[in-house]
C-alpha cells in the first residue's frame, strides 16, 4: 500500500501514530513492511490457507463478536440437508456435475428458502422466474443457538477445522508463532470498543480463486464485527483514477449501469422475464424495476413507452462470458473485425501479451486512444515477435488509427475514487492540436452513426436511431457538455426536468430518467455535487461536503451495523449511526444506510413484501434477508465457502485436498497458451509474482514517457533473494533471463533480502519478483512481465492469475524473443504429471476458442 497508494497509506501511518498495530502480509518486504509492526512473508497463492486459519482461530478460541454475528449475519441459517463440504469430498463441494463440468448449487441453498444473491451469478438461480418462487424470508429456518450441525456457523467451523497454525506453516511457509501473533493482534483489536480494517489490491484479485480470497476476509471481518463500523471494513485499493467509476457505470460486458445485469439470451427474453429473474421478492433489490425503467427512459427517451416495454428489446443479449480474455481468444481466431482501445495497453498489461498481439494482428481495424502511440498501437512493428522475425510487418493486415487524447486538465468530468467518492475535475486549458476527450470521441462517433443510419428502417437500427444523444456543444472543438451528461446519470423527473435527490424517488412508470440509479442524486438541486470542495478543516471528520459518494452521499456502507440491535452505538468510541428514539429516526455523523424511520424493534409479518421484509436488525439491506453472508448459498460458481486451492502453476501439491486447483477455474487450452505442470515442474521450478512500483503506473502508458519518473525508476529489473542468486549464479546488477513455456524476457537482477525463501514440504522455495510496467517503447524500456503469464482465470469474475505462477531463471542474456503465441511452445515436451483435478472434474466440455470453464451451462446458451 505504501508503494502503490502512498497518499492513502499516510492514513495508515496516522492510525499507527494513534496506537494501531499495522500488519503487512506480502511475499515481499516493501516500503509497507518497513513501517509495519508485523511483516508476514507468505508464499504467493496461499492466502486462503492463512485467512481460513484466522477463521478457525477466531471460532476455536471463542473470540467472535456474538451479538453482531447472531443478529447481523446468516450464521444461524440452516442449510439444505443435501449439502456436502470439501471435508467430505476431498476438495469438492456437493453438486459437481461431471458431464456439465460445473457445480449445481441447489444443495448449497438455505433450508425452506431459495434466496436470490445480491450480486454475483444470479443466473445460477434459474429455472423458474424467481418472483413466483416467493422468496418469503419468514420461511427461512434458523437455529439461533448455532449448534445445529447444518447451520452456517457449524458448517464454517467444520470447513476450517483443518486450517491450523501447523497447516499455515505447511501451506503458506509462515511460522506458527508468527501466525499466532497476527491472530492475537487482530482479535484483541476487535469488539464493541475497537475495529480492524483489511486493505487489499490486485495481489488478492489476480488468482484463479481471487473472489474467494476476498470472501475469506469478509468471513473474518464479519466474525469480528468489523463491517459497517468506523475503522472497519475491507478496502479494495484500486489502481486507476476511475476504475471504481468504470465498474459502477460499467464499460464491462455483463452489466448495465448500477450493477443491473446485461440481458442473458436464454433467460431474459423479454422485460417481464428479465425483471422476474433479477428482482428479489425481499430486500432492496425488490426495487429493481424502477432502476431499469429509469435507465431505459434515459437512453431511449420518448421512444420508450409502457406499451413497448420501455424499448427493452433494443438491448443486445449476452450468451455466456464475453470478458476480455474470452474476446481476445476470439480475436486471435480472426472472428472480430474492429477493436477500440481507450486509455489501456493490453499488449503490455494483459496476460500472455504475445497472444494479445496475435489478436490485434487478426483484426481488420484497431482504434487506439492515448497520449502517445503505445505498444498496443504499435504492435505491428518492433514487437518482440517482429524483431525476432517470427512475424513480419508486411504480413499484418490490420488498419490502425491512433487518436491523441485530451488530458484530465483539458476536460470537465468526474472520477470515482476507490471509496465510491465522485470528484469533479475542471477543465483548465484547451486540448492541444487534435487531442480530444473520449467524451468528444464517443459523442461525435455516435452523431456520425446516427446520420449513417438515419434513413434505415431496419428493426436492428431502431436503437441507434432512437438513442437520446442531444447534449449541448461547447466551443470551437464542439465538446459535449459533461455536466449535462452527469445530470442524466444523476436523474431527473421527465415532466419538469427537476433533478432528483436520491434513488428513492425513482419510478417504474416512466416518470423518471436516471442513467445510473446508484448515482441518483449526484446532481441534486441542479448542482454538481461531485464538484463540492468545502475544505476538510471546515467540516466534520467524515467530510460529507467534499465531493459526493454513492449511494446517497453515504461514506460508510451498511452503517446500521455500527449500532447494536437496539439501535445504540456499540460503544462511545465507535459511535457512528444510531436510532434516535425521541425523533423516531436513524441519525449520526453519516447518512444512515437504512430505512430512516424503521425502528430497531420492527419485525416484518408473513405478508410483508419488498423492502418491508427488512427488519429493524437487518443492516445488510441489499441482501434478500438483510443479513451479511458468512456462507454464500448462491451466486458463486466455485462453492459457498472459500477453500484453499493451489494456483494453476504451483510448486507444491495442495496440502489440504486431493483437488489441486479451483475446479471451476477458466483455462484456455490453445497452442499459444501452454501450461506448466500442476506442481513439481523441474523445467520451471520457481514461483513468480508480478507487481507495481511507486514511480510507474500499470502498463506504463502514463509514466514511461515522463522523464521525471523514468529518471526515478529507469529500467526493468527482477528481484531475487541472495539464496536464489547463489543457486542460479545471478549477480546483482547483472542480467538474467526469465522464462515460461509461453515466453522469455531479459532483465537486470536486483539481489535483495527483501525477497524471501520458504521452506515447505521439505523443500526450499524461491520467488522471482517481476515488476510489470515495461515494454519496448517509451522513454524507459524493458521486457514485459506479461510475456510470461498465461490465460487462466477466476470463474466468477474472469480475472486472470498473475500473482502466482511458475518460471525458470538463468543468468545472462539468453532470450531469443520466442513466443508461444507466435511460433508454438518454447520447449517441445510432453507435459505429463500430477493431475490438477479429481477424476470427476477432469473432463470439462470444451467451449469456444479453447475455453474450458466450469460455467458453460449456467451462463451460456443452454
Amino acid at each position, binding site marked *: 500500500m505504501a508503494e502503490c*497508494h502512498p*497518499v492513502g497509506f499516510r492514513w495508515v501511518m496516522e492510525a499507527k501514530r494513534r496506537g494501531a498495530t499495522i500488519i503487512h502480509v506480502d511475499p515481499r518486504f516493501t516500503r509497507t513492511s518497513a513501517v509495519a509492526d508485523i511483516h508476514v512473508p507468505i508464499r504467493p497463492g496461499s492466502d486462503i490457507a492463512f485467512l481460513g486459519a484466522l477463521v478457525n482461530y477466531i471460532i476455536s478460541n471463542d473470540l467472535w463478536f456474538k451479538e453482531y454475528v447472531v443478529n447481523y449475519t446468516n450464521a444461524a441459517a440452516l442449510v439444505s440437508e443435501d449439502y456436502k463440504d470439501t471435508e467430505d469430498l476431498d476438495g469438492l463441494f456437493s453438486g459437481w456435475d461431471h458431464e456439465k463440468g460445473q457445480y449445481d448449487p441447489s444443495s448449497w441453498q438455505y433450508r425452506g428458502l431459495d434466496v436470490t444473491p445480491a450480486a454475483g451469478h444470479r443466473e445460477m438461480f434459474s429455472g423458474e422466474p424467481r418472483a413466483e418462487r416467493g422468496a418469503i424470508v419468514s420461511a427461512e429456518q434458523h437455529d439461533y443457538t448455532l449448534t445445529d450441525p447444518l447451520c452456517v456457523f457449524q458448517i464454517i467451523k467444520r470447513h476450517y477445522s483443518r486450517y491450523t497454525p501447523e497447516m499455515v506453516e505447511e501451506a503458506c511457509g509462515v511460522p506458527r508463532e508468527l501466525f499466532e501473533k497476527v491472530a492475537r493482534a487482530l482479535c484483541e483489536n476487535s469488539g464493541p470498543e475497537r475495529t480492524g480494517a483489511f486493505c487489499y489490491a490486485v495481489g488478492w484479485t489476480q488468482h484463479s480463486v481471487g473472489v474467494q480470497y476476498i470472501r475469506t476476509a469478509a468471513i473474518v471481518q464479519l466474525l469480528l464485527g468489523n463491517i459497517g463500523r468506523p475503522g472497519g471494513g475491507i478496502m479494495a*485499493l484500486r489502481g486507476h483514477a*476511475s*476504475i471504481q*467509476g*468504470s465498474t459502477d*457505470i*460499467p*464499460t*464491462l460486458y455483463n452489466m448495465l449501469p448500477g450493477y443491473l445485469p446485461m440481458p442473458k*439470451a436464454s433467460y431474459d427474453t423479454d422485460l417481464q422475464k428479465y425483471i422476474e429473474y433479477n428482482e428479489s421478492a425481499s430486500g432492496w433489490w425488490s426495487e429493481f424495476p424502477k432502476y431499469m425503467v429509469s435507465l431505459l427512459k434515459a437512453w431511449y427517451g420518448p421512444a420508450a413507452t409502457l406499451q413497448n416495454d420501455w424499448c427493452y428489446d*433494443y438491448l*443486445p*443479449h449476452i450468451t455466456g462470458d464475453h470478458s476480455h480474455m474470452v474476446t481476445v481468444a476470439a480475436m486471435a481466431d480472426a472472428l472480430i*473485425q474492429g*477493436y*477500440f482501445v*481507450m*486509455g*489501456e495497453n493490453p499488449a503490455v498489461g494483459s496476460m500472455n501479451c504475445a497472444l494479445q498481439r496475435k489478436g490485434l494482428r487478426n483484426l481488420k481495424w484497431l482504434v487506439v*486512444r492515448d497520449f502517445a*502511440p503505445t505498444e498496443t*498501437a504499435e504492435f*505491428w512493428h518492433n514487437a518482440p515477435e517482429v524483431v525476432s522475425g517470427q512475424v513480419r*510487418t508486411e504480413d*499484418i493486415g490490420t488498419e490502425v*488509427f491512433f*487518436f*491523441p487524447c485530451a*488530458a*484530465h*486538465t483539458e476536460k470537465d*468530468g*468526474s472520477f470515482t475514487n*476507490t*471509496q465510491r467518492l*465522485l*470528484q469533479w*475535475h475542471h*477543465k483548465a486549458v*484547451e486540448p492541444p492540436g487534435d487531442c480530444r476527450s*473520449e*467524451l468528444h470521441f464517443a459523442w*461525435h*462517433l455516435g452523431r456520425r*452513426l446516427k446520420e449513417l*443510419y438515419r434513413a434505415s428502417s431496419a428493426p436492428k437500427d431502431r436503437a441507434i436511431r432512437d438513442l437520446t444523444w442531444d447534449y449541448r456543444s461547447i466551443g470551437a472543438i464542439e465538446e459535449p457538455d*459533461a455536466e449535462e451528461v*452527469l445530470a442524466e*446519470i444523476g436523474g431527473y423527473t421527465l415532466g419538469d426536468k427537476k433533478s432528483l435527490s436520491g434513488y428513492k424517488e425513482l419510478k417504474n412508470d416512466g416518470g423518471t430518467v436516471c442513467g445510473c440509479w446508484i*448515482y441518483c442524486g449526484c446532481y441534486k438541486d441542479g448542482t454538481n455535487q461531485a464538484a463540492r470542495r*468545502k475544505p476538510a*478543516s471546515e467540516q466534520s471528520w467524515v467530510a460529507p461536503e467534499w465531493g459526493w459518494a454513492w449511494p446517497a452521499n453515504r461514506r460508510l456502507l451498511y452503517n446500521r451495523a455500527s449500532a447494536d440491535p437496539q439501535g445504540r452505538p456499540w460503544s462511545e468510541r465507535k459511535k457512528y449511526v444510531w436510532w434516535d428514539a425521541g425523533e423516531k429516526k436513524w441519525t449520526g455523523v453519516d447518512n444512515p444506510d437504512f430505512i430512516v424511520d424503521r425502528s430497531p424493534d420492527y419485525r416484518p409479518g408473513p405478508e410483508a413484501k419488498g423492502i418491508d421484509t427488512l427488519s429493524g436488525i437487518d443492516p445488510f439491506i441489499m441482501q434478500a434477508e438483510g443479513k451479511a453472508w458468512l456462507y454464500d448459498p448462491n451466486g458463486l460458481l466455485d462453492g459457498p465457502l472459500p477453500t484453499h486451492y493451489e494456483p494453476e502453476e504451483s510448486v507444491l501439491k495442495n496440502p489440504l485436498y486431493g483437488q489441486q486447483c479451483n475446479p471451476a477455474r477458466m483455462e484456455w487450452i490453445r497452442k499459444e497458451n501452454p501450461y506448466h505442470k500442476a506442481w513439481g515442474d523441474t523445467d520451471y521450478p520457481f514461483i513468480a509474482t508480478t507487481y507495481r512500483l511507486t*514511480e510507474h503506473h500499470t502498463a506504463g502508458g*502514463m509514466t514511461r*514517457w515522463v522523464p*521525471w519518473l523514468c529518471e526515478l525508476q529507469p529500467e526493468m529489473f527482477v528481484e531475487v533473494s541472495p539464496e536464489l542468486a547463489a543457486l542460479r549464479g545471478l549477480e546483482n546488477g547483472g542480467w538474467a533471463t526469465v522464462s515460461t513455456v509461453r515466453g522469455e524476457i531479459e532483465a537486470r537482477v536486483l539481489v535483495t533480502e527483501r525477497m524471501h525463501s520458504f521452506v515447505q514440504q521439505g523443500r526450499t522455495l524461491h520467488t522471482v519478483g517481476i515488476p510489470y510496467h515495461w515494454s519496448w517503447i517509451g522513454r524507459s524500456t524493458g521486457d514485459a512481465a506479461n510475456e510470461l503469464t498465461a490465460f487462466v482465470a477466476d470463474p466468477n*469474475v474472469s480475472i486472470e492469475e498473475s500473482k502466482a505462477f511458475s518460471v525458470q531463471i538463468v543468468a545472462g542474456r539468453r532470450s531469443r524473443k520466442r513466443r508461444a503465441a507466435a511460433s508454438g511452445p518454447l520447449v517441445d515436451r510432453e507435459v505429463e504429471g500430477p493431475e490438477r483435478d479429481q477424476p470427476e472434474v477432469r473432463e470439462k466440455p470444451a467451449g469456444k476458442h479453447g475455453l474450458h470453464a466450469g460455467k458453460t451451462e449456467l451462463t451460456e*446458451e443452454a
Partner: protein
Amino acid sequence: MAKNGWALRWPALKQLSTGDLAGLGESAMTERTRTLRPRVVEADKVVDSVCPFCGVGCGQKVYVKDGRIMDIEGDYDSPISQGCLCPKGSATMQLVTGTHRTMSVLYRRPYGRKWEKIPLDKAMDMVAERVKKARDETWEEQHEKGHPLRRTLGIAHLGGATLDNEENYLIKKLFTALGIVQVENQARI
C-alpha cells in the same frame, strides 16, 4: 552604502549582530531571497482537479497562466490527501505538458510500415464507416434456438478505468445501442 553597513553584511558579523547563531535565519537572507515568491502566485487562475493516476483520488490544484499550465500541486483542502501527492501525482505537470504527447491523428494502412498523419474529421468518418460495415456484416438477430440476441460480436472495446464517468457512460450507452456487447476495461485485469 556606509562602510559600517558593508561590514555588518559580512556573514559572520551578521550572524553575531542579529543573534542568528545557527546562520539559518535572518543572516542567510539576501535581497533576492527576501523577494522570492512561488511561481504560482503569478497564475491567472487556479483550477480544482483530481490526480489521474491511482484510485485514491488526491486533490490537485492546476495553475494556469496565459492559457498554459504552469504548475500542478496538491490541494491542501482535500480531506483525502491534505496537500500531498506521491511521485506519480507530483509528475502530473510533465504528463500533461510533456513533449511526448502526440498532437495529430496517426493512420497505419493495412500491411503498412509507417504511420501517416490524417485529419481528425476524416479519421472520425473512416471509423464511423468501419463500425457500420462491421456491425451490419456481423449482426446476429436471434439465436438458433429462437432467443433474441440483437447484437454484434464483430466489434469489441477495451478501456475505461482512466476515463471519466461521463465518458464511460456515453461509451456504454452508444455501444449498447449499436449492439456491441464485448465492452471491457481494466477492472477485469
